[in-house]
Structure formats: C-alpha cells, structure tokens
C-alpha cells in the first residue's frame, strides 16, 4: 500500500514538526520546508505530493504566491495560518485552496480535513491493512486473516475512523460526532458498546486501548 505524501510549508519549526509527527504516526509521508522560496524551487523537480499544507506568512515567498504554483501540479492545498481576517480567508479560498484553518488548531481536525480532501480527490486508498485486518472501504468489508468478519454498519464506520487515525486517541464525544454525526454528550455509552463489539468480533482487546480521559486508540 502506498503512503500518502504531504508537503508542509511552515516557518515555525515546532509547528511544522508537530504536524509531521502526527501525520507520520497515521502513515503519511511528510516533507517540510521552512521557507517559501525553498519550497518553490524544489517543487518543479519534485511535485509528487497528494496534498500541501501552507502557512501564509512565510519567509522568501508567501503562501498566497505559492498557491498557484502548487495548484498547477494538481496538488490540493490547505492553508494553516494565524491570519484570521475575512479578507485573507477569502483570498486563500478564492485562490483555489481547498480549506483554510486558523491557528491555534486541533491536530485531529487537520487530519480529518486532510482525509476528506484526499477522499474527494480519490487519493485515499480504498483498503487499509492494519495488524491482521484488511479493511475494504469500497466493499465495506473487513477480513481477519483473509476471513470476512460481519460487522454492523456503525461498527464498520467506527473501525474505519479508528484505522484511518491509527495510533491516535479519539475521545468518545469526537467518535460520536464523527461516526454517528451526533453531538449528545450523554450518549457516549453507545460508543463504549460498539467498541466492545469490535474488540470481541475482531479480537482487538489488546489493540483498541482505552486512554484515560482521552478516549480510544487503535494501535498497530
């Protein structure tokens, strides 16, 4: 399975590395540039990226100027910036960016948005192999060691979210929202029940970990 490649152009070293660190854990390949001009020079040689995350205020060449260059290689762009004024947002989105995220941001949110954009542009692989499982998103099937395990629709969706963001803990509330599309805080029992089902049906007792206060995490 091919890993998705992410281009990160962000002048703040700490933030760039934090994004890269999280993406790597979830099986992405990352390339970081701290300078707009360096990214500009490099992209003509190597434009094999599935998505780009750009800061706006960059040394050398700013994000708005970099956008058309990157877009010309059919790479979708997400702006990630401290500039939260409407004019900048409009400039970014009208210029062809897929999304515009204002700092400070939630890492999980960034990852979900990356995932959505990759799905829309058909760059997301339709199967995920994790542990002894093969998850097929087209067929909505899960095979354990080649044998299909029957899951209810919501159980499958829950597994999909956990697998896409593997090694990252997701809170019950977040899962409820991402899988069921609900925001009821009191309903988190549902999540626990479904997690229990997944653990039992797929033998994931060891791998779906309960992280105290942080939620559930599927580890490989």
């Amino acid at each position, binding site marked *: 399975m091919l890993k998705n490649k992410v281009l990160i152009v962000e002048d703040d070293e*700490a933030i760039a*590395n934090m994004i890269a660190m999280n993406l790597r854990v979830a099986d992405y390949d990352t390339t970081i540039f701290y300078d707009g001009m360096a990214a500009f020079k490099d992209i003509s040689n190597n434009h094999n990226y599935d998505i780009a995350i750009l800061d706006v205020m960059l*040394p050398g060449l700013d994000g708005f100027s970099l956008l058309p260059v990157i877009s010309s290689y059919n790479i979708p762009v997400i702006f990630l910036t*401290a500039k939260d004024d409407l004019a900048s947002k409009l400039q970014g989105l009208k210029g062809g960016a897929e999304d515009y995220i204002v*700092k*400070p941001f939630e890492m*999980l949110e960034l990852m979900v948005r990356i995932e959505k954009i990759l799905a829309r542009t058909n760059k997301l692989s339709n199967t995920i192999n994790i542990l002894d499982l093969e998850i097929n998103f087209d067929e909505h099937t899960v095979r354990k060691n080649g044998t299909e395990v029957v899951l209810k629709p919501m159980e499958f969706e829950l597994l999909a979210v956990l697998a896409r963001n593997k090694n990252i803990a*997701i809170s019950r509330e977040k899962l409820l929202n991402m899988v069921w599309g609900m925001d009821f805080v009191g309903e988190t029992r549902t999540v626990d029940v479904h997690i229990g089902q997944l653990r039992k049906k797929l033998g994931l007792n060891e791998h779906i970990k309960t992280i105290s206060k942080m939620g559930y*995490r599927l*580890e490989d």
Partner: protein
Amino acid sequence: MSILRLFPKWATDWRIKAMKLKSKIQIVTGLTVFAITLVCNIVVMYFVAQNSIEEAQKKSFQEAVSCFFNIETEINNVGERNNDIVMKYIFKTVADDYLLCHTSMQEYGEDDFIYNNTVLELTDLKDKKYTYQEYNGLNGIQLVKLDYGNKNYYMYKTVFEPDYYVYKLVDVTYVGDRLRLIGIVLIILTVAITFLSQIIITAILKKVLKPLDELNKTVKNLTLGEYEQRIEVAGNDEIGELGNNFNIMADAIWERTKSLEESERKKTLLIGDLTHELKTPLTSISGYSKTLLTVKLSEEDKEKALSYIYSESCRLERLSKKMLSLVLLDEEKEIDLVETEAKELFLRVEESCHKLLEQKEIELVTVVKNEKFFVDVDLMTEVLINLIDNAVKASSPKNKIILSASDNTIKVQDFGIGIPKEEQDKILEPFYMVDKSRSRKNGGAGLGLAITAMILEKHNCTLTIDSEEGEGTVMNLQFV
C-alpha cells in the same frame, strides 16, 4: 449648585433664566444713571427754587416799599393827614389795583375800606400771621403769603399815621410757574438721560459680549468633540486675550487628546501583536502536549515533543519578561543618570555579548577615548546589547560590528543586510520585525528595539538610523 440651593426654587430659576450678564449690566447701569441724575436734578431744583423765591421776595419787597414811599410822598405833598377824603384821593391818584387801605382795625366793616380794588375783604386781612421785615423806614413793614384762586401773592402791610393800614399785594405766581416748568424739564431730562445711557450701554454691551457669545458657542461645540474649532480673536483687550488663551487651551487639549489617542492606539496594537505573538508558541505547546497525550509515539518522538514544549515555554517566558520590562519602564517616571566612562560601558557590553558574537564568529571593534555620558548604566548596557544583538542578526558570519563613542554620540555599525527605507520608522514599534521569520528563528520576539526606544526616551537620547540595503546599518545614539 449647592450655593444656588440656598435660594428658593423660583429665585434660582429666575436667576438662571432671566439674569444674563447683559440684562444685569443694563438694569444696574439703568438704575444707577437714573438715581444719580435724579439726585442731581433734585439738588439743582432745590437751589433754583431757593434762589427764585429769594429773588421774588426781594423784588416784591422793593415794589411794596416803593409803592409805600409813593403814597408817603403824595401825603407829604398834600400836607394833610388824618383825612379820609384826602387819603381816598391820594390812593386814586396812585391808582394801584393791588393796593388796599382801611382805617382802624378795631372797627371792621365794609365802609372802613378807604381804598380796595380787590375782591379781598377785611376778614381776609385779619388773623394772618404777619412777619416783620428788616426795614427801618415808615412804620415797619410786615409780610404775609396769600394764596387766592390759583394765584400766589405776597402781601406787605404798613401803617400810616394815625391809623391808616395800607396793604400792597405783589403777584408772585410766576415763581411757582417757573419752578414747575423747570421741574418738568428736569424730569424729562432725567428720563432722557437714563434712556440715552441705556441705548449707549446696550450698544457697548452688544459689541463687548459678542466675542463672549462666540466663545460660549465654541466651547459648546468643543464639548461635543469638535476639537479643531477655534475662536477668531478680535482686538487685544481682556476678551481678546481670553479668546487667545482659550485657543491656546484648545490646542493643548487637542494635542493631549491626540497623544492619548495615539498612545491608546499603540497600546491596542501592542495587545493585538502580543496576542498574535503568544498564539504561535501556545499552539505548539498545546499541540505537542495533546500529541503526547493521545498519540502513540516512539521514544525519540516523545523526547522531541518534550523538547519543543520546553523551548516554546522558554520563548513565552522571554516574551513575558520583555513585556514586563516594557510596562515597568513605561511606569517608571524618572531614572537616575550617572556620569559614566564610555570605556566602562563598552566593557560591560563586550562581556555580555561575548557568546552571541562567538556563535557567528563576529568581531566587535570598539572605538573609545575618554568620553563620558550621563546614563543609567544597567539600562544603557541593555540598549547596547539589544542593538548589537540586532546587528549580529543582520550580519553574515565573520562580519565586523563597530561600537564607537564620540562627543555626545554612541554608534553601533554593522555591515549586514540593512533596513529598507520604508521600514526604518516602524522598527521602533513593539513586535515589529523587518523579516518576521528570520528574526523569530534567531530567537527574537520583536520587542528589543521597542524597549531600546523607551529607555532612550528616558535618557532624552534620540535614536537615528542610517541604513542602506545590502550595505549595513548605523544606529546613532545622540545624547542631548
């Protein structure tokens, strides 16, 4: 307000509503002029009256005396006294309508009149209080005032031997008439003077109070926020001076307001910038902690995340320290200036900058003789370190930085990238960075020059920047 409360409500209302300065002056001057004119006229009237009456008395007395002498002469010519017929004859020849004569006072009766052309009767003559006049001729002359109809008379009385009582009436009505006329004229004059004075006062007040009215209007407009409005000053009297001073005050207020607005604007900007500057390290810190908490990381990544959290916290700490020193400097009104050798100052700076310079292998050249400056040593060292720090950031490795002192001036010169012309004014503002990311990577928060500017302000020292892009920068500290 409290003073006005002492008066009943209607009184204060009346005072406020009715008593404008103009009306006050009008009423006071009107009453004063009227009173003074009236008193003057009464005094004039008194003396005129006295004089007229005296004159009339004298004149009438002389008339009476000459009349009596005529009769005396006639009697002497005839040479016969004590004969009623002769007396009647004599009176007829004298033929004075205002002359009366009767015989014995004891025998009252119509027939007793020797001569009478008047309507007076004997009863009108008796029981009067006659006063003796100072006169030594004849048999003495007595006087009584007599009013008849609307006429006034002086009646003089004398006695001819043996018992002829002769009365002479002199009409003095003209005196009263004249006095009445003068009185009327004086009253008219009083009213006229009062009226005229009012017209003049009103005209003067109008001219004098017009600038006050305008002043009032302008003050009202000023209160409503039209700080640019000024008074047109006419003349250099007290009101002109007031207008002038008012304009000066308005200027001062305007300037003060502007500078307050400006400092308020700067503060708002500072807070905005601060928030912005805090956002980046905070994003990293919260992001990394969340990552540590939720993500299954390798040991290596865990360490990396922790070291980022630490370094970003240090960045926050530096930022807060610099912010604090900005605030403290702002609050501190005066600083102690001590005469200090430039050599000593430079030595301290060199010591502090040693590590900084070593990193980029930059040489710091100091040019100093025996110059002395009045400075707060700690703060000025801070300034120079800041400037050298900036110079180091702008310089390429192995460049030179020159720190020199001459009369009243300290210079920090580098041969680095320089500052673009349009940026030179702004670099003294907090958080301003010519090249944002480069400065950040060098650990700056953009507060250094703002603190420098503030310290220099406390020293009454001006900072000027000579810079060419690509050639380098000279920072001049000009002491007063």
